[in-house]
């Protein structure tokens, strides 16, 4: 990971100087993660693909605003977060994004159906904030401080969302065994 981060720093520096190949290499390293992140937010593959392109286009246009290249990942995901929520607001302006989401249409996945559906159902029951917190923490592996930077909220808020989300998910994905409770 250390070597990869060092290479990213070099690619960022080259991209800032106008090296398109360097930026394309940077894109190839991060597009899968960004795609899956926005996909879990918007749950539409075509929308996720377009968002992904928008994210990297804006990333390149605003790369000069990145003060600390070592913070590239949280910065990039912040752009993705903003783009995803802009699309969600545009598509569902009457929906309270902080409340329960509308029915989420499952996307086709090549996975054990039962686990996939159970996880999708469990995630759909979360609020948008809790769902995104779980996505950033469990799927993307960010630290609480990085998540606070992405979501522009205090670390304590991030923690409470993650803990609450885990409590809710636990009830669905890991119920208490009958006869073996606390």
């Amino acid at each position, binding site marked *: 990971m250390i070597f990869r981060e060092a290479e990213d720093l070099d690619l960022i520096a080259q991209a*800032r*100087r*106008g090296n*398109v190949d360097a*930026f*394309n290499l940077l*894109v*190839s390293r991060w*597009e*899968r*993660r960004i*795609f*899956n992140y926005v*996909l879990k937010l918007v749950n539409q*593959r*075509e929308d*996720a*693909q377009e968002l*992904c*392109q928008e994210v*990297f*286009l804006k990333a*390149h*246009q605003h790369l*000069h605003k990145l003060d600390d290249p070592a913070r590239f990942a949280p910065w990039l995901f912040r752009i993705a977060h903003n783009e995803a929520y802009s699309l969600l607001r545009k598509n569902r302006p009457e929906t309270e994004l902080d409340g329960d989401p509308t029915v989420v249409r499952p*996307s086709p*996945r090549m*996975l*054990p159906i039962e*686990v*996939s559906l*159970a*996880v*999708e159902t*469990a995630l759909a029951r979360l609020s948008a904030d809790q769902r995104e917190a*779980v996505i950033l*923490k*469990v*799927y993307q*592996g960010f*630290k*609480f401080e990085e998540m606070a930077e992405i979501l522009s909220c205090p670390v304590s808020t991030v923690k409470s969302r*993650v*803990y609450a989300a*885990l409590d809710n*998910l*636990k009830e669905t*994905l*890991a119920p*208490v065994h009958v006869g*073996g409770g*606390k």
Partner: protein
Amino acid sequence: MSAQTGACPTTLLRDALLGEASPAGRREVEAHAAHCPACREEMDRLQLTQAALLSVRDEEPLRRIAFVSDKVLQPRWWQVWRWSAPRATFASAALVAAAIVAHGALTRPATPVVQRASVDREALRRSVAAEVEKQVGERMQLALAAAEQLQEQRTAAVVAARLAAVEKRNELDRQALLVAFEEQVSVLQKTNHRLIRDMRDIAYVADEQGRGQ
């Protein structure tokens, strides 16, 4: 709640699962869970939850994203200027440093005294180098001679010891051979005496028989 370990560290337990706890915190959680069935179950459920979530694999993007050279992607002139400013500053500083060095190298000395002093230094340097080389050579010679002498002494001692060992072994072999030879001589003498006696007996018997006839 475990009476043995005190209050359950619920927050620390979750942080440990999420990779946010320190190594000491993780050990504390493990030690507590070993004696607290409730926390053990909580840990198991959270791990199961996390495993279920992670069983959902990432998907590949529908299309690869790539950019081509375009004006929209080219940095603005002021961006180029801004990001080349550090290099321009460094280049300027390098030029100034080079100018200072060149000035120092090309500027002639103010008075001839400085020139004479450099000549004396050169001769002094040469004489010092020669003296150092001479002394180093002499000391090396002495050291080599001492090393050779020591080596000769050691070699002579080793040779003498081995010769003595060979001599001793030869002496022992010689004595053993002598003893064996004397024993053989004794055996042969006894055998010889017995033969002589037997021959006398045979001659006596033959003589007696001749008389009887």
